[in-house]
């Protein structure tokens, strides 16, 4: 059952990802990305990360994608040439890298690790509670740095999109 779901979600990730790269109309590309985000969230549920799945739907599909859709529709891009001249070199690079990863993955072995949070304990405490406890104890400093990063991005976006006086 798990394997079946995994292959369904992989198909739901790979095919929309290909559509994002191959489709001509940017609006359709963005909507294909929405489908991909939903399937990635499903994969997270499969991996016992329910809270991350919820955040994926809320933040990625709810906030980031809507921002993209706004910009794509605001700019009203006409259909133009899709690809530039480096299609063949790019494909060669990508296929070589993929082959390299496959060789490394199937050549090596991932040893069975045992950490302090096996699936049973996460189920017992709850995914959200575990993440919250870790986030506000061991990873407090990265958390604060992330908030600072968001503040900087916000100020940057406001400054960048402000209309300078006397221009246009």
């Amino acid at each position, binding site marked *: 059952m798990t394997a079946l779901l995994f292959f369904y979600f992989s198909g739901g990730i790979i095919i929309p990802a290909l559509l994002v790269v191959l489709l001509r109309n940017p609006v359709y590309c963005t909507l294909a990305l929405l489908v991909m985000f939903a399937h990635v969230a499903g994969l997270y549920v499969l991996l016992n*990360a329910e809270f991350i799945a919820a955040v994926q739907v809320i933040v990625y599909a709810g906030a*980031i994608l809507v921002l993209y859709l706004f910009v794509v529709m605001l700019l009203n*891009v006409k259909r*133009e040439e899709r690809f530039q001249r480096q299609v063949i070199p790019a494909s060669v690079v*990508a296929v070589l890298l993929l082959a390299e990863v496959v060789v490394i993955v199937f050549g090596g072995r991932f040893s069975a690790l045992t950490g302090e949070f096996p699936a049973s304990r996460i189920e017992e405490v709850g995914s959200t509670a575990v993440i919250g406890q870790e986030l506000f104890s061991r990873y407090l400093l990265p958390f604060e740095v*992330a908030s600072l990063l968001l503040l900087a991005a916000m100020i940057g976006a406001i400054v960048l*999109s402000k209309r300078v006086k006397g221009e246009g």
Partner: protein
Amino acid sequence: MVPLSYYVVLSAALFMIGLIGVLIRRNIVIILLSIELMLNAANINFVAFSHYAEMVTGQLFVFFVMTVAAAEVTVGLAIVIALYRRRATLNVEELSLLKW
């Protein structure tokens, strides 16, 4: 139970699709979308390894990746809008002012 290597290969394939998108597309918005594909590939790896290694560190780092993605999108799209206002194009081949 699906072995961990399946997840790694899935994430590698997704990353390659994103890389191809960045390299071959002309529309700057689609290039940003392809970067999202690559970030999601990294996130899948983080969550898969955190599940198989029985730690929550990977899930926490997915948070930080999402924060970075949100910041990247806001600034990137602001730059795209500013560029479009000034040059009226989204084609990266025409935006070569900084190329010598």
